[in-house]
Each structure stands twice: as structure tokens, then as C-alpha cells.
């Protein structure tokens, strides 16, 4: 890190191609670039192993390639997650959970590459994803249950005089879902990357003793990769739980 450079500089959004549409600034930024890279990578990751095995016709085609096993591992991971939390009805929503999981996972992992940009460290991105899930789940609840969906806010077996107090609390609890979902992902990525840069600054500042923070950074990088995976997992499992709540009230 050069002198006088803030550890927060990595989160700055820089336009790459300036686009101005009717006074709206929709420039292609570095954030958008890394989202495109992530999406393109996921597409290649999941189509390439299957395209290749079609062309040749040898014995080795009978065995799945390493890439195919890796792709299927991610596939079965989300499949079992949905099966455990939602049950058999969850199959329909596989594509939603899988897309979210992969997008966040690879977004986080690509953010670990030096000089790249972590788009999940911006609250607007994570809030948009969380709001998408929230609106989808609410609409799903209304489609499945109609007006009965409102009974979700009433705890069964509660004395009637407690209702005016507890229904607003339940509604706040319901509305807090997208906020806590987005803040969790955003805060973890922001804090982790800032911490890495702060300790990277110590390496050059301490001279020969810089070896100590350097060792720490190596350990921290491992932890960051774990967190990158964990946060994607938490986002996916919460999406499953919310779908489950919308399908089976209480």
C-alpha cells in the first residue's frame, strides 16, 4: 500500500465507460465489471465440463471430469440444503437459491484476488439482493395462502389481549429480515477487507519486523476465504428458511 492511501480506497467505485442516459448516470463501473466477470465465470464453470464431454467419444468420457465433479458438488450441496430446510416442495425454488449462492460465493471469492473489486462490500448490492428475496417470499406467501398469510403475524395460542402488543413486534421482526440479511454480508466483507489492508500497511511501515503482520495477513486471508464461503452459505440457508416460512405458515 502506497503512503497516504486509505485502506478504504479499495471500495471506491470508478466508472470505466461513461454512459449517460436521459440524465441518469448508468456508467459501466468497476463494480459492474466484476459482476460481469463473476456471472461469466459461473456460466463457463457450469457449462464447459458438459460441453467438452459431448465432442469426443473415448472411454474416459464414462468418468466425470474434475470440473464436472466440482460443478456437481455445488449442485448437490444446494440441493441437500433445500431438501433439509424446505422439503420436497423446495425443488421448485432450486434455481433461485442456487443462483444467489453462486453469485455471492464467487463475488466474495473474486474479491479476494489482489487488485480486484468486491462488489458484495457495497450495501446497495447486498440490499438489492436481500430485497429481491424478501419481495419474492412475501409474494409467494400471498399467492399460496391469500389473505390467510396475515395469520403469520399472529402467534397461535396467545391470549387476545396480548395481540395489539405482539402483532407490531412480529411485523418489525418480519421487516427486519432483508436488513439483517444484507447488513450481515456487507459488514463482513467490508470489515474483512479493511482489516487486510490495514495490516498490509503495517508490513511496510515496520520494516524488518513487518514479518509479523505478514504472517498474520496469511492467516487472515485463509479466514477471509472461509467467511466468503460462510456468508454465501448463510444467505442461501436463510433464503431457504424464508421460503419454508412462506410455504408453511408457522
Amino acid at each position, binding site marked *: 500500500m502506497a503512503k497516504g492511501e486509505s485502506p478504504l480506497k479499495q471500495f471506491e467505485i470508478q466508472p470505466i465507460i461513461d454512459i449517460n442516459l436521459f440524465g441518469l448516470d448508468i456508467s459501466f463501473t468497476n463494480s459492474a465489471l466484476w459482476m460481469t466477470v463473476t456471472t461469466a465465470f459461473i456460466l463457463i464453470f457450469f457449462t464447459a465440463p458438459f460441453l467438452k464431454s459431448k465432442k469426443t467419444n473415448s472411454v474416459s468420457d464414462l468418468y466425470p471430469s474434475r470440473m464436472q465433479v466440482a460443478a456437481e458438488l455445488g449442485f448437490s450441496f444446494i440441493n441437500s440444503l433445500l431438501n433439509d430446510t424446505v422439503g420436497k416442495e423446495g425443488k421448485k425454488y432450486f434455481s433461485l437459491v442456487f443462483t444467489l449462492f453462486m453469485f455471492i460465493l464467487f463475488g466474495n471469492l473474486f474479491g479476494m484476488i489482489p487488485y480486484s473489486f468486491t462488489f458484495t462490500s457495497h450495501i446497495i448490492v447486498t440490499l438489492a439482493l436481500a430485497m429481491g428475496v424478501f419481495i419474492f417470499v412475501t409474494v409467494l406467501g400471498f399467492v399460496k395462502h391469500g389473505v390467510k398469510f396475515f395469520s403469520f403475524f399472529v402467534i397461535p395460542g396467545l391470549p387476545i389481549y396480548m395481540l395489539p402488543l405482539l402483532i407490531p413486534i412480529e411485523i*418489525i421482526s418480519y421487516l*427486519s429480515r432483508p*436488513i*439483517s440479511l444484507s*447488513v450481515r454480508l456487507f459488514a463482513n466483507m467490508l470489515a474483512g477487507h479493511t482489516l487486510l489492508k490495514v495490516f498490509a500497511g503495517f508490513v511496510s511501515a515496520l520494516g524488518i519486523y513487518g514479518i509479523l503482520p505478514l504472517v498474520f495477513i496469511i492467516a487472515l486471508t485463509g479466514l477471509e476465504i472461509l467467511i466468503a464461503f*460462510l456468508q454465501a452459505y448463510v444467505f442461501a440457508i436463510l433464503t431457504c428458511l424464508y421460503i419454508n416460512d412462506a410455504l408453511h405458515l408457522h
Partner: protein
Amino acid sequence: MPDKQPKMQGLSFAYRISTELLGALIVSVIIGLLIDKMFDSKPIGLITLIIMGFFAGLLNIYRLIRRIENPK
């Protein structure tokens, strides 16, 4: 990764508990400020909603812990 599931679940609960309270409080502060703006009742709406938001956050955490104790 089926064998990794329980370990991951424990860690994910740890990350969730910290933000459940925060999320409920943020939402209640926003609603409280909106109510104050609409009815011009400066601090009362905010104070009431913060207290309710705190209880909503506790309710979230309570539900989470109940799920840890008996995962269905």
C-alpha cells in the same frame, strides 16, 4: 459436503445472532422516524418503536436459539 454441514451450521448461527438484533433496531428506528414525521409527534414515536424493535430483535434471537436446540 454433507459431513461439513454441522460445523458450518454452528458458525453460521454465530454470524446470524449478531445481526438479528441490529436489523430489527434499524427497521424500528426508520419506522419510528417516519411516524414522527407523519404525526408530528417528535420523540414519542421513535422511543416507542425503539423499545418495540429491541423486543423484536430479542424475539428473533429467541427463535434462532430455539432452532439450534432442536433443529426440526
